[in-house]
């Protein structure tokens, strides 16, 4: 190694660090929380890893979907309702079916709901109604459909399908390989799509400045519709993960609304600003796991689960306030 290459390399490293500072920070926070959690409980092993990773799956999927849409400059309040729809549809039609048919249904749900949300993206781009308003309205429509498909909690799925997401056919215990894989594969796929493909780059471009993107010759409408389609497909995946986790379907409106709000919290904690065009879906994965992990950590500390809600809220507000303060101080300094 020559001495000339060293400063060059460290400069490149510094650039990578400063660009991905937030993502690295969130992953470090997750690592620290994991280490802390392992010292809090007597035995930390496969069981804990399985339970944390599988319980995070729905939120992580939903947050990745929300992340892509927010990067494209939108926001989707209907993702939770799409989760409900996917969950209800899967639980109703997968019940007592062999694995082959279950997988076909899963595929149909993912493409179908992806297409539904692409339609939402199309409506947003032709109507000129803000994203938040259109998706607010569609959130009612989709949760109505979910109730229509599955009027009351129930239904089921194939045991092998549960194994696919949870690593165990009964949904209890099992190996950590499946849930970790199921978290990693879609996350990495969407990450590569967003950073390395033409479509992904145009999604960042329209979120950053849609007028400049249009003047540069990008098809803004196509990129927006694609972002909503990916978001919808991820919400469908979240619904499938829910049916695999719980073994049933539950179409209650409040579940969807909470899931939507948590997905927004996860993306902001994961470093995607709501103004769009920046951030990375990898940070969102860690943020989603952190939000889910808070509950077992707090109960291991002997804190009333009701207080977990308070601490989660304080954590989100606190992190964002520190972020805001840093920006403020930088502005003052310059």
């Amino acid at each position, binding site marked *: 190694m020559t001495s000339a290459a060293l400063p060059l390399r460290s400069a490149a490293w510094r650039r990578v660090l400063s660009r991905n500072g937030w993502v690295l920070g969130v992953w470090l926070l997750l690592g620290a929380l994991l280490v802390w959690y392992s010292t809090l409980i007597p035995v930390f092993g496969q069981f804990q890893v399985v339970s944390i990773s599988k319980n995070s799956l729905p939120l992580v999927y939903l947050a990745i979907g929300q992340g892509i849409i927010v990067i494209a400059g939108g926001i989707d309040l209907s993702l939770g309702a799409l989760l409900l729809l996917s969950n209800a549809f899967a639980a109703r039609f997968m019940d007592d079916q062999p694995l082959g048919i279950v997988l076909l249904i899963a595929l149909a749900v993912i493409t179908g709901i992806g297409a539904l949300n692409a339609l939402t993206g199309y409506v947003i781009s032709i109507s000129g109604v803000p994203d938040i308003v259109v998706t607010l309205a*569609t959130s009612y429509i*989709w949760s109505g459909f979910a109730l229509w498909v599955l009027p009351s909690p129930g239904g089921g799925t194939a045991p092998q399908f549960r194994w696919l997401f949870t690593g165990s056919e009964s949904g209890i215990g099992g190996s950590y390989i499946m849930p970790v894989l199921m978290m990693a594969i879609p996350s990495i796929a969407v990450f590569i799509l967003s950073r390395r493909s033409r479509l992904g780059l145009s999604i960042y471009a329209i979120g950053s400045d849609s007028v400049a993107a249009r003047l540069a010759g990008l098809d803004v409408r196509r990129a927006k519709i694609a972002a909503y389609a990916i978001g919808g497909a991820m919400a469908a995946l979240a619904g499938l993960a829910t049916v695999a986790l719980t073994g049933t379907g539950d179409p209650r409106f409040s579940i969807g609304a909470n899931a939507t709000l948590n997905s927004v919290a996860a993306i902001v904690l994961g470093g995607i600003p709501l103004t769009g065009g920046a951030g990375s879906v990898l940070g969102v994965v860690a943020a989603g796991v952190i939000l889910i992990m808070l509950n077992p950590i707090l109960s291991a500390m002997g804190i009333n689960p009701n207080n977990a809600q308070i601490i989660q*809220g304080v954590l989100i*507000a606190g992190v964002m306030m520190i972020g805001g303060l840093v920006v403020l101080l930088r502005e003052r300094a310059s």
Partner: protein
Amino acid sequence: MSQPVTPPSGGAFETKGATLTDRTRAIVSEYPTLVLIGVLILLILLTGAIEPEYLSIRGMRNTLLQAAPLGILAGAQTILMLTGGIDLSITMIATGSAYVAANQSPNGAAIAILLGVVVGLLAGSANGVGVAVFRVNPLIMTLAMSGILLGLFTAWTQTILQGSTQVAPFIKVIGAGSFFGNLPYSVIVWGLIAVALLWLLRRTGWGRLLYAIGDNEVAVRLAGVRVWQVRITAYTVAGILGSISGILLAGRTGAVDLQLANIFLLPSVAAAVIGGTSIFGGVGGYTGTILGALILSVLNSMLTFLNVGQDIQQVVYGSIVLALAWGYASLTRSA
């Protein structure tokens, strides 16, 4: 978004019908409130066709009882949306205030209402400080506040707020009682608040600053306005409105629980949006929001009378909200 200007069509092709629709379009985009009033009347008549009893003050009583708290919550959203903000914790503030009011009801209605409003004052100003001073995105700040309040009140119901979940008789009268036979008192409360809000937004410097901040915050700051102070007061006022709405709701149901106001969160935003207030700030007003709240409440009554399942109700509700927002956007854009 600017649309390319269509060249005027040749005189030979211009028909009388086209100019007539153009003129209606012009009138409609000048006075979008007229369209909302039209939609409201249409919905009332439709509901009347389904349930003839509805076309009387007695029949509309339930709609008005629902419209009053919704209209007040939507008023809070309107104020904040004008500045480019939003409050997702408003229904949790309402629920919390109702809880405190119920808990303090044995000490008399005045103390109960006062302490209930304090909840909104505190939570609202905390939101304001987070958004204005620490520059947290309003969506996130109020979402976090909603979680904090839910946790606090869930814990407090087992400790310091243990006891009464029934509200004082006076609050029940305000929330559900009627005068002149069937006109609810809560509508009077809403009316007073509406007059106050309309006056604040149209006639005071504070109201103009709300519009100005939503339109161009940098310009307002450069003009020497302490933007953060205006924002904090806006969130505080919104919190107080949330409290009042929560206490009215508690009076209507007579007892409180932690789900009391939750269902009003999305409608409160929807009412303001249907009424023409832009979610990006600077455009809108409370007149439209009042109509939006009435439209949504009548719609709700209609769906109840139709006696269809919850599923169909949600689909119809969502579709109509979308159609109204879409129609409004295309009408005002063509101006």
